[in-house]
């Protein structure tokens, strides 16, 4: 057993946990969190792809993971803004605004 197998399995497991919960959880907010978890799982796969036992990791996958993190935070921000806007829209709908 090596760190590679441990964290490789962790990555795949995180991805599966995230994927499952992104599909079944009842609230949009939690689905967004679940997608973030799944994306961390994918990040693990790339990080172990870069890892070398003796040190001197491959910098390219690291750059890819950083890009992936930034892309996902952007998408998350938009999704959360939609959640807030929907909340506001529903609140105004229940009020007696014309």
């Amino acid at each position, binding site marked *: 057993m*090596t760190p*590679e*197998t441990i964290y490789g399995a962790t990555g795949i497991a995180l991805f599966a946990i995230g994927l499952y919960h992104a*599909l*079944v959880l009842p609230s949009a907010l939690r689905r967004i969190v679940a997608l973030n978890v799944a994306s961390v799982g994918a990040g693990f796969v790339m990080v172990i792809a870069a890892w*070398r*036992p*003796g*040190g*001197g990791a491959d910098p390219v996958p690291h750059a890819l993971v950083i890009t992936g993190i930034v892309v996902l935070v952007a998408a998350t921000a938009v999704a959360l803004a939609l959640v807030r806007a929907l909340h506001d829209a529903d609140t105004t709908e229940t009020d007696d605004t014309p």
Partner: protein
Amino acid sequence: MPLPQILIALVPGLPLAMAALLAFAPARAAVRAVLPLAALPALALTLLPDSALLAEPWLMLGGQFGTDPVGRVFMGFSALIWAAAGWAAVGWMRGDDHATGFAACFLLAMAGNLGMFTARDVASLYALFALMSFASYGLVVHGRSGSAFAAGRIYIVFVVAGELALFAGLALMAANAGSLMLADLRAAPVSDIAAGLLLAGFAVKLGIMPLHVWLPPAHGAAPVPASAVLSGAMIKAGLFGMIAVMPFGVAEMPVHGTVLMAAGLVTIFAAGLGGVNSDSPKAVLGWSSVSQMGLMALGLGAALTVPGAWALVLPALMFQAAHHGLAKGALFLGTGAFGAAAALRGSWAALPLLALPMAALVGLAPLSGYAAKEGLRAALAAGPAGWVPWLVLALTLSGLVTTLLMGRYLLTLWRQVPTVPRAVVEGPGWVALPAATLAACGVLLLGLWPLAGFGPVPSSWPKDWLTQWPVAAGVVLSVAGAIWGHAQRVGPLVLLAQVMAPWHAAEAYGQHKVRMTQRAARRLARAIPAHIDAVAARWRLGQAAMAAVLVALLAVEAPALFSQIAEHAPFAAAGPDLPQP
């Protein structure tokens, strides 16, 4: 570009250009006034002896156009009918609110019909054929009445089904032949499915039973000039299509041939029954067209069964097509003339105009119809041995059927005078003159036929006048039927009611059943998707689908995956690592 090629481009090009001009309001009146001129390039091309080739590799899938003797014969009589009908349409549509729409559909259908005779490749043939079929929908529903829309609905259903069959059949043949050229298609072996699809697709246009359902209502509903081209020119396009793509005279397809001959036999007589039961003069003419197309089916079927007979059958069929087109076109236009004459209180005045094409249709010697039948009789004699007596008998009896139909036509004409627009009542020449021209061309056909290059005219002078017996019998039967029917109407109504009661009961029961079935089908069609929708929402189609897709992809990929995993032995050591820098 030499003249023939310019003409080839103009055959569909001129009508299309004129149709496009209709989009500009100032040009509309002018274009509508010169409607018949659109058929002139085709007429001119008929007279040019050489087959010219116009290749347009940029067009669709590589279009090629040219003329050959067969195409020129079809183009000749079709262009004549289009020109005459266009002439009539100029008068007929004066003051009509939807005249521009009619002219546009008329020109588009003309472009498709005349253009397809020059097509040398599958895509062009199919495209032009489809253009003709779909544009004709506008002609059928021109009246905007309930019955016109009903006829249009049936028409469009059959057209779409036919087009699908054709599309599939043509794609199959083209793939088999490895080429899009019609000449290669005819030479290549053809699969049974492809042949079946093609025959069915073109038979829809020909109106061979049981694919005839759309034809009588459509021909009955369309305005007179449109009926003339529908019945005179356009249904022949189905015949041309079969000749153009099927390997007649090369391949032997006994099954298809037998089916065609059987369908033809049924068509000839069943269409007669349908026509005799029909109440509108134009629908009766439509039924008569169906019956006559049964003859075509006999010839085509015989040639499919015995390829050697094709050399005789082809000219006979073309002659029959030309003769029928001219005569039927004249009769439809004559129907309009009859209406005009009746409105002017002189129904009898139109009879001489109708007499000539009627006589030609029933096969009275020495007119073109007799010659056509003799030619077909000689050709059928070369057909499959077991079938020949039946074919010849059917051919002979078809004269009787046609005569009866013509009698029924006159009767309904008298009872139900067709309504014509004011413009035609004021100027009956608008329909009478084109009708007379077509009738005269029918007579001239006998003289002009040798020029087509398919041998001499079949004998038009009977050796034995007794061969005319079906016509005589038909006349007698028609007159007797008319008298008897009249007597029935004024006579013992109770008896009639009793005789007819089971029929009426059966009919009412059938109608009720059909209505119930339709309603149930409609309810089901609405309920089932709604139910599925509800279930899908309850079971979260979106989420469940992800599982389904994952499972399906996993199931497909699993065998390879497992074998690869086994090969690499799980928990294998990592690949060669990079030495420390």
